[in-house]
């Protein structure tokens, strides 16, 4: 069996006495699109932050292509090939759209802490950034400050920034949060095209969003995975219906 792109082994996180993530085990294979869903407060974002090194875990392991990520800073994890987006739009609002994407290309194109070459003259940067802008359909917003874009456009830009670095494991934290139906359809389609051949792990509140997109779905409830499997199986799982859909139905009434 090949090593999983991302593997969580008995991952736990406590804030004070409260255990938020209570022993999560999960293996996501190469090129798999995996969605983690769950009701509000299930710990989805915390799980995300543990994987990407934003918080240190209390115990357990996170493995990226078999390498333990314990104690690694976010920038180191990123260099190992994992990139993420944020639930609250997290871009560089004062810079232009083009500049946002170009910055996200710098490290992966090997510029590192270079202080002797001009970014404006590097064709690989300009062309690479424009290619990404084309993919996310923001080419005609190129020279606007990113902060002036519409909400959906900013979310698209954030996805662009996340994939630009060429990471093979992409993590998206509620990419469609706060969007209208047509915007959600648009973003889901965008995610589908830009993550071809990559491993995608996305957190979603809304099961409907991920249904057509994900190869497998995991359901997180109160810090534990209660089910993992193909979308149809997960939907049919009585435990899921009870814990998640039941809660969702309650919330609707």
């Amino acid at each position, binding site marked *: 069996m090949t090593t999983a792109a991302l593997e969580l082994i008995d991952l736990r996180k406590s804030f004070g006495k409260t255990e938020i993530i209570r022993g999560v085990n999960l293996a996501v294979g190469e090129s798999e699109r995996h969605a983690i869903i769950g009701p509000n407060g299930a710990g989805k974002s915390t799980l995300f932050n543990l994987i990407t090194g934003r918080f240190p875990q209390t115990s357990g392991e996170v493995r990226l292509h078999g390498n333990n990520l314990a104690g690694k800073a976010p920038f180191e994890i990123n260099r190992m090939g994992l990139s993420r987006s944020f639930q609250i739009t*997290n871009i560089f*609002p004062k810079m232009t759209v083009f500049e946002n994407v170009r910055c996200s290309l710098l490290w992966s194109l090997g510029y590192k*802490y*270079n202080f002797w070459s001009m*970014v*404006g003259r590097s064709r690989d940067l300009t062309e690479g950034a424009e290619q990404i802008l084309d993919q996310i359909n923001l080419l*005609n917003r190129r020279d606007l400050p990113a902060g002036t874009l519409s909400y959906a456009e900013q979310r698209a830009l954030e996805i662009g920034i996340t994939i630009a670095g060429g990471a093979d494991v992409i993590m998206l934290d509620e990419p469609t949060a706060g969007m209208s139906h047509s915007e959600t359809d*648009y973003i889901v389609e965008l995610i589908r095209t830009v993550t071809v051949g990559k491993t995608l792990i996305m957190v979603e509140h809304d099961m409907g969003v991920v249904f057509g997109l994900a190869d497998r779905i995991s359901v997180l409830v109160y810090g534990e995975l209660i089910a993992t499997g193909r979308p149809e199986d997960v939907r049919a799982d009585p435990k899921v219906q009870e814990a998640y859909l039941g809660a969702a139905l309650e919330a609707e009434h």
Partner: protein
Amino acid sequence: MTNPMRDNQITTDPSKPAQRMRAGSMSTKVLPWVIAGAALLVLPFVFTNNSAITIMNQMAITIIFALAYNMLLGQGGMLSFGHAVYAGVGGFACMHVMSNTEFFAMLPLPALPIFGGLFGMGLAMIIGSFSTRSAGTVFAMISLGVGELIAACSVIIVAFFGGEEGVSGNRTYAMPFFGNEFLQQIDVYYLIAFWLMVSALLMYLFSRTPIGRMANAVRDNPERAEFLGYSSRWVRYYSFIFSGFFAGIAGGLFAINYEIVTEENLNTASSGVILLVTFLGGVGFFFGPIIGAIAFTLLQTVLSLQTELWAFYAGALFLATVMFFPGGLAGLLMMHVPAIKLGNASKLVVPYITTLIPAFIGIMGVSALVEMTFHVRHSSVGDEEMTVFWTTFNSHDLLPWAVAIGVTVVAFGIMRKMLPSLRAAWADANTSKGGAA
């Protein structure tokens, strides 16, 4: 699949934006530098007397220092309260090179500032290694602490800082540079002008490099930068080191120009001044600190000949900038770009005149009141005659006070009356004819 965002966008030619950017950029980028270089060459022929050249020397040194400071504040998002330390240490280093007569006799004077730069950079490497761990309050507090610490060292480590009287030297002992011994102020002017061009150009180019772009990214959103593979701390550290280098160059030029460096060059007051200069000019644009340095040096030199209270006015100007024009003088200028692009700049001329003239008279009235108060409180007993704005009168009479107060109130009153028309004109000038801009 429908694409809701694309449908209602104005479609330009998406295949060509890069070329469009590049084609126009070359001439518009080089031109300002050519003009600046030419101006630096010609200025001494326009302002020929020695005091003008002294002022220009001071201006140029302040410009380099302010640009270096803005690498931190404007581009890197680091607020330093102790940046004079790097300029000061660079200056002291250069004074010691000057004192080492044997070595100095083999060194052409124009190369001396490099030693200042290297010492400033060296110190920045040490201090930055722990101060750039975070930006924000922690960085500001460390910079203040280090500033105080090194200023205090000046009376402890006398061998380097020369105690209270500082270190002095003689620049003419350097190896003659093509026969020039830099005896005249004008010779020093060209030396400083050369370094100004070189430093400003290098600092500008730095902002265009990958690390310079990431400095902006880290300033705006350090966390996002981390998730793009960059350590925010290293990015800040690099900016800090480069800033220390150019601050040290400024310090070295100070040493050459004044031939004495004292504790005053690195104390917290000097650090405060450079913050003020940079902010006054505007941190958001590369040329902001240049304008700030010119304006501040003029205030400091020209205004200080007119009034003892120049620092009061400088403070008031700074306050007004922070409160009303946070973009500084550069921001104020650049605000007009949209109106000019729309071809509407002429619409602003009349409202500006009708508003700014009363505002100017009002400010003159206030300053007259300030000067009169100062005169009444501080002149010696019996000396009741004073001159303000070419008018000589008795500061203890009632009439001048009544006039000054009257003028101030009426002028500001008119200004307030005129403000709505200026606002309307502003809105009008920034709206394109075809509707919303």
